[in-house]
């Protein structure tokens, strides 16, 4: 029989599909990306063209074509992933959200404006708060459903993923956990992020196997605190530096080019301002890199498969620097390659360990939503 019940990812047994002789360089990865940007370019450029001439309507089909390519060039052990979603699913998802959500919000905004102008600010504000809360709730549901849709349309060896849960309860969890996270002066946000990740994936499955996430938030707290306190630290350092320079100029007594010196100080402050945001962003990246390593590292599929994610802050930094460089150098056109870069990054650094028996992996019987990621799309969280 063709059955392949081997270990992979270097966790006992010979890695199937990989090169067993690859011992010195570490075990072969279970996930390999085999695409090239030259193959991707014709897809990206024709997508851009068609999206422009259709005033954006083609973007749903564009996304589908992109994913078909990216998935088909991503190998898991011995077989490539396959994206089986359709453009019209994403389009209908978008239409549904536009009708069920977009139009009511538009009307409500009109009503709120009218209430404000007519002198009922209290009622207007109450409506506004209700609207914001609804959007908050739906953005949680959207995140969940997008993941469910993506798993449901991702096939490997003919098997797909999915979830039995439509995600409406997850939306409530999302609300209260983030509310607690922010109310505790933002200090519990990592807890909210980690526990929501676990909750989300805990409802997902692939074939008949359930995913589970057991990550604990404490390993990411140190880095989160650094990010949290970074503005304060940076401000103190900045003020000390400016103060020192200003004192220096003041103490230097009378000299001809004093104005020049003050001008230079202004320049320094401007540079400091930019540096502040760069360093703060870097602190977040430092946290986020760890966060993803932790949450993915504690994920399992069934009893026998576990996952890992090895991208360090430096890897993330290089990815983002590359993104920015690409977009700047190409005057914005490089933007169409970002999805390719991000997917490649993800597949390159994600890892799986364990044993899988293809004969025993059965098709998922989770319900399949007929529409795509409309909600997520509406809230602009479509980026992978």
């Amino acid at each position: 029989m063709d059955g392949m019940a081997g270990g992979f990812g270097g966790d006992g047994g010979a890695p199937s599909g990989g090169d067993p002789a690859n011992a010195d360089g570490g075990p072969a990865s279970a996930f390999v990306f085999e695409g090239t940007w030259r193959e991707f370019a014709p897809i990206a450029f024709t997508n851009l063209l068609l999206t422009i001439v259709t005033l954006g309507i083609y973007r749903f089909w564009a996304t589908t074509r992109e994913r078909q390519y990216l998935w088909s060039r991503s190998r898991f052990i011995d077989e490539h992933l396959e994206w089986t979603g359709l453009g019209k699913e994403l389009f209908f998802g978008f239409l549904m959200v536009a009708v069920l959500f977009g139009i009511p919000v538009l009307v409500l905004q009109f009503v709120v404006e009218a209430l404000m102008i007519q002198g009922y600010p209290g009622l207007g504000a109450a409506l506004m708060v209700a609207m914001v809360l609804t959007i908050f709730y739906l953005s949680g549901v959207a995140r969940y459903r997008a993941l469910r849709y993506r798993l449901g349309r991702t096939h490997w060896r003919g098997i797909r993923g999915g979830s039995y849960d439509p995600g409406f309860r997850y939306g409530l969890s999302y609300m209260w956990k983030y509310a607690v996270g922010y109310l505790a002066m933002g200090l519990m946000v990592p807890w909210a992020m980690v526990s929501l990740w676990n909750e989300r994936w805990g409802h997902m499955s692939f074939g008949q196997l359930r995913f589970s996430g057991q990550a604990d938030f404490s390993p990411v707290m140190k880095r989160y605190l650094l990010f949290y306190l970074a503005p304060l630290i940076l401000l103190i350092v900045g003020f000390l530096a400016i103060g020192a320079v200003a004192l220096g100029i003041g103490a230097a007594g009378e000299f001809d080019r004093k104005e020049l010196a003050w001008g230079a100080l202004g320049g320094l402050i401007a540079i400091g301002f930019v540096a502040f945001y760069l360093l703060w962003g870097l602190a977040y990246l430092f946290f986020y890199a760890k966060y993803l390593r932790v949450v993915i590292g504690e994920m399992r599929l069934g009893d026998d498969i576990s996952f890992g994610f090895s991208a360090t802050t430096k890897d993330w930094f290089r990815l983002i620097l590359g993104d920015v460089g690409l977009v700047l150098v190409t005057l914005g056109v490089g933007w169409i390659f970002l999805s390719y870069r991000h997917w490649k990054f993800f597949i390159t650094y994600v890892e799986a360990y364990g044993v899988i028996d293809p004969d025993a992996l059965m098709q998922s019987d989770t319900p399949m939503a007929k529409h795509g990621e409309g909600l997520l799309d509406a809230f602009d969280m479509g980026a992978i």
Partner: protein
Amino acid sequence: MAKVCWTRSIWVRSSFVAEMVEAEWYDGLTARKRTGHASLSGSVLLLREDDGTQTALPLQDLRFVERRPEGPVLSLNDNRGFRLRLLGTIPPDLAERLPGESRYGHWIDRLGLPKAAALFAGISAVALAAVLTLPNWLGPLIPQSWERRAGDAVIGDMGNTLCHSEFGDPALKQLAAAIDPERPVTRVDIANIDMVNAVALPGGRVVVFDGLVQEAESADELAGVIAHEIGHVRERHVMQALLRQFGLSILLGGINSDVGSGIFGIASTSYTRSAEREADEYARERLAAADISPLGAAAFFERLKKEHGDGPDWAAWVASHPVPSERQKQFERAAQKGADYRPALSEQDFGALKTMCDEDEDVEEFYF
């Protein structure tokens, strides 16, 4: 799944020997890979597994997925997990019956990319043009009474911020009647808002902010501003702008919001400018007819230009008032030498407008 039937049978050599092609597939039920051969048999594709298991797939159920260097990949319409890869050269009779390749989507594939792109571009251009120009025709067709009712429903008395006084109300009426004697339905109000601005609102209403009234140094200046706003009302600019905005937001709803609002802004600005010109022309005509000097308006627009900031957000959906210096010059040019201009209002009436909001004890402050 019903159309895939699995039958364990012995391969019977028939008199008709179809050419076979090597194949591997997943059945969409388990992750087990099947290998064997595929061949055409009437209107079905026969898959024969190496162990003899045979599967018949109706050709019309096959769906093209992608072309790989080693051969085409196919799926089934009602079983997305099913994957069939044909490896090597495909016999011509089979190749003919396989579903056509799809790359961009059905319609585009049928037309070819260049033609389809040109067609789409044409349709988009027509749609954009329609959305931008149709409101100019449709706007005036919408009954004034509808617009008025809708405007009143939304705006009402603006949260009791409209000022009234014993002498101010008749003075304001007199000024409006002088400028637009045929259309007494146009309502002109002064609102207790400390901002140098005036707006034309849905429902044929003109609201002058008190900040502007205080800024005006003569009744002629005020008359110019009010004439301009009445011009927006008479030309149905507010309705046109509302319709255009509605059409654009639907048409560009598919685009990423940043790009969309960029196009949106560019597309509507040119129309705003032409609307401003029309309102100005109307104002000059009416001022001349009412024997009011346009120099007041010119002087005022000059000051407004210097002090005018961005209006409040909710004013964005009504006609806005950029004040280019060109407008000021046009008002200056409209002044006729030797014309017998008379003041738009007496000093006393103008004074009543200036103190209108102070005297109204019920009126409320407007907060944004």
